[in-house]
């Protein structure tokens, strides 16, 4: 009985996703890719895609650098300041988004690509910090010391031991940071300005009025696909680590 129930729940969780993906390939019951080719002809879609991608890549790059350095700094030194990294994860996203909007208004920062990017980085730093820190082996300091006793100086140790050992965490952190930025909606919508639109904003602008359309299905399918690929990579590296 419980088996049937569990099956039903998973059906509930995945039916809509399967339905969107399926209908993005269907036109009156016939298989087609025309919704996708339509997407690739649409200037607005291409432009938004480009915006989303550059936003996610840059946000990932900066947050990974900042967050990783911080995680390394806080390893084994339990400074009280560490809790500052957890607040952005706990605070509801909408509050963070509107506070950034107010901040930009006060300092008269122009709303657009950079205002969105800055917000994404702030949020991602916290996630990268937590993930990298959790995956930095608690043995890291010891292993670094072992390297020193074997004759490698600090710089050799950093590149031969610290970086390779931190790599799984850095990769995992990058994947999560990219995903968080790639399909982020709430922070983007609050901090964007005229002329800067991402794919989630595009979907929202049409779907918020309850409009479902085949090309929107195709776009959603593409975004889901990206998320699935990232999740798959994440699982792969997590498993290899164990």
């Amino acid at each position: 009985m419980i088996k049937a129930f569990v099956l039903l729940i998973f059906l509930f969780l995945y039916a809509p996703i399967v339905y969107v993906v399926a209908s993005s390939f269907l036109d009156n019951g016939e298989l087609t890719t025309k919704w996708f080719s339509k997407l690739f002809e649409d200037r607005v879609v291409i432009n938004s895609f480009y915006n989303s991608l550059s936003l996610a890549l840059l946000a990932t790059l900066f947050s990974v650098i900042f967050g990783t350095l911080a995680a390394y700094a806080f390893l084994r030194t339990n400074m009280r300041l560490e809790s500052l990294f957890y607040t952005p994860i706990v605070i509801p996203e909408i509050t963070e988004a509107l506070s950034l909007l107010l901040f930009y208004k006060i300092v008269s920062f122009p709303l657009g690509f950079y205002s969105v990017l800055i917000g994404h980085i702030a949020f991602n730093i916290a996630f990268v910090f937590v993930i990298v820190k959790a995956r930095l082996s608690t043995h890291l300091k010891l292993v670094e010391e072992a390297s020193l006793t074997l004759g490698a100086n600090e710089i050799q140790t950093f590149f031969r031991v610290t970086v390779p050992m931190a790599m799984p965490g850095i990769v995992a952190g990058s994947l999560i940071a990219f995903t968080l930025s790639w399909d982020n909606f709430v922070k983007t919508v609050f901090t964007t300005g005229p002329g800067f639109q991402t794919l989630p904003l595009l979907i929202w602008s049409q779907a918020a009025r309850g409009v479902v359309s085949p090309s929107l299905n195709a776009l959603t399918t593409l975004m889901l696909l990206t998320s699935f690929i990232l999740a798959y990579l994440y699982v792969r590296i997590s498993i290899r680590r164990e």
Partner: protein
Amino acid sequence: MVEFAVELDGVSKSYSNFEAVRDIRLRIRKGEFFSILGPSGSGKTTILRLIAGLLFPDKGSIRLMGEEVTLVPPYKRNVGMVFQELALFPHLNVFENVAYGLKVRKVPEGEIRKKVKECLEIVNLDPETYSRRKINQLSGGQQQRVAIARALAIEPSVLLLDEPLGSLDLKLRQHMMSELKRIQKTVKTTFIYVTHDQSEALIMSDRIAVINKGSIEQIGTPAEIYETPATKFVAEFIGEMNFIPAEVYNGGLMSEIGYMKVSKLNGAKRVVVAIRPEKIKLGCSELDNVYNAVIEEVAYLGGFLSLKARINGICLKCLTPSDLRFEENQKVELGWRADDAIVFEA
């Protein structure tokens, strides 16, 4: 030709709020298997890390093979270290782990291969089978061997071992003890072995330093440490010991169990007398000290009986061959020779 591999002179090290080691003076001979034995938190690992250069002393000086190294960084000291947690490189395989120290020394590839093979053979790991293995594919005992091989590969002037057997089960630990001894005999390097386990230290060491609260209590061979402990702490920490509080009286000692003859007094008025359980003889009246006791507990240990015998308010542990038979509540005479009792200040 220098006689000592490691010399510590008046070395002290404090952390922010407590003194980890105080005024340590140690001379460790070349080729010696030397153990530093003490309870956890006694400062023994600090001493090891000072020798390795992972910590620098606040006071005092350290010499390695006669050379002053007090403030030399670890990577210029050429000491091998086997960490308690092993600290193997998880991103490298067995071969790369052992070769690491040679690679950073820019040793030619061919020589590295030869040396790694040699070191793996010393620790009884077949190079053919294990070179390409990942660290997490090895058992605890095998990881131990890789850690030792990695430290030996750089031909260290001393090999420091920080409780390396702590995480192994009893059987493997006993096996690794004899392995370590064999490896030390093969490579003839000075081994400095830190442990809190007295049996490890007694079995393997040429000499032992017993350390407590950051200070050395006694340095000596295992037999010296066991038979003539220099302090009450050493007497209590190594092996089983009975303690009887007493006061000087009439050239001997008076205690709750009665008058005791001892061979030596230390000048103090209130003292503690220490007697090993195996030195107490039962059913024998021709000894310097003889008392009437009641057996309270009998435990059969195979070749031996472990007994608890009460004399007035004092309960003494005794160890006696099991060919003698005793029962609970049995009245016996027990005693010991004056020479076997050691007197400490109370």
